[in-house]
């Protein structure tokens, strides 16, 4: 815990300094408040609209979490299917990478056509953006089981199913968790983008819906307060999945792998 505090306080101090200099600097430069609100005003607005903000963040968080769980399950199963057959892998994988480069903002309007306005489109958006890191990392994990152990299983004439269950799937857990950690941050982004495009306040919107509405009303302090909230939400997602994966790996006695992406 003391290490956490030691790691957290330098960025905290920097943030505080940046906030203070923005507070003073914006005034000195004569930037009008409707273009860029002062940090103090953003915080005041955040507290003032605290209830609405937390409800919106909760809804966005739920959508992102649902999408993330969907992509963890779907992505894990897809990686499993791809790991079983080299031909299918060679056929599917490049296409998957190709589709991954299509920006979510461009697909989001299509989702309105497919599943209509509202939460399902938001969840789908979160799911789509968080899918590929899970598939890519899990697949790599499934394929990189210790070759010596694969030989051992083969020498004992183990069935492919038993190799999968006793060797490949457990070996892939660290990489799966790495993928999940990357996907966690992305799922929040996906949900907010989904809300920009496909959500209204009719069914009670999320933080993306709130930002969209605040921009139309030119309420810049509220926009910034919502941005601050979504950043904290993304951070909370990333840290919780990181913590969960740390616990899981310690339980399994597997050394933690560091993600490079």
């Amino acid at each position, binding site marked *: 815990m003391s290490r956490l505090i030691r790691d957290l306080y330098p960025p905290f101090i920097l943030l505080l300094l940046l906030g203070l200099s923005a507070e003073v600097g914006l005034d000195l430069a004569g930037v009008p408040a409707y273009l860029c609100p002062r940090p103090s005003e953003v915080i005041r607005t955040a507290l003032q609209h605290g209830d609405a903000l937390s409800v919106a963040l909760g809804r966005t968080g739920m959508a992102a979490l649902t999408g993330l769980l969907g992509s963890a399950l779907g992505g894990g199963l897809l990686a499993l299917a791809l790991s079983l057959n080299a031909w299918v892998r060679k056929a599917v994988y490049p296409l998957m990478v190709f589709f991954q480069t299509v920006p979510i903002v461009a697909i989001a309007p299509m989702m309105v056509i497919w599943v209509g306005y509202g939460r399902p489109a938001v969840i789908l958006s979160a799911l789509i953006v968080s899918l590929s890191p899970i598939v890519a990392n899990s697949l790599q994990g499934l394929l990189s089981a*210790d070759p*010596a*152990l694969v*030989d*051992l*299983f*083969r*020498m*004992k*004439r*183990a069935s492919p199913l*038993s190799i999968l269950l*006793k*060797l490949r799937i*457990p070996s892939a857990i660290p990489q799966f968790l790495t993928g999940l950690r990357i996907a966690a941050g992305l799922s929040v982004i996906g949900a907010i983008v989904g809300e920009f495009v496909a959500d209204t306040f009719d069914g009670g919107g999320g933080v993306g819906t709130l930002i969209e509405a605040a921009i139309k009303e030119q309420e810049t302090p509220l926009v910034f307060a919502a941005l601050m909230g979504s950043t904290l939400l993304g951070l909370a997602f990333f840290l919780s999945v990181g913590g969960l994966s740390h616990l899981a790996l310690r339980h*399994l*006695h*597997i*050394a933690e792998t560091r993600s490079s992406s």
Partner: protein
Amino acid sequence: MPSKSSATMPPAPGIRMQKLCQAFDGRTVIDQLDLEVQPGEFLVLLGPSGCGKSTLLRLVAGLSEPVSGQLSLNPPHPGIGFVFQEASLLPWRTALGNVLLPFELEGVPVAKAQQEARELLQDVGLEGFAEYYPDALSGGMRMRVSIARALAGNPRLLLLDEPFAALDEVTRTRLDQHLGELTRKRGTTTLFVTHSIQEALALADRIVVISPTEGRIVHDRQVPFDWPRTSIHRQSGEWQALARHLGECLEPSEAIA
């Protein structure tokens, strides 16, 4: 210490290789190899890294098929134990869990497997460490677990691919000694790959030196020392002379260069 009498076990297999060839992507790794291994013999394959020794073990284990030539085990299909360069344990299983793995894969009843696995851990000197996970064991201890795993189900043929290369000198010497005892007590046919002359002399009934260029046998001799080998053996002139001679066999001679 539970000792296994070799009378109750199936016989150790002999191995015969005739004009055995193996190549990968057109590169010859083993070239026209003729080698006969006696049942119960401890044969050390000595050679520099990358001379095809590991390939030879994989062929014997049936993990790959030769390009040409014959390889036969007599009696065929013996139980085979394989010890790899790394301990290659499953990190999410305890020492006991790792030794249980081959029993599970072969469908041995749990109670019997448990008992035998515990005996095997005892045989390799790890009776107090059954519930330890690999991340809490030293490199030498992990390798002991790996040996216990390879001995599961009483294999009559034991194949070891530079198993102690990554360990420190003291641990390696101790494990060599222990392995030599285990294999002789069990009467297994053993193929042991190494690039260490001292290790070869410490373990082998017979040493076969393989050339570095194209897997060919350049030297084949019996080791004239009794088992167990002690420091008296190691300090003898005969040992030193043999070590020197094996060293010369390993060096590419002027004639080849």
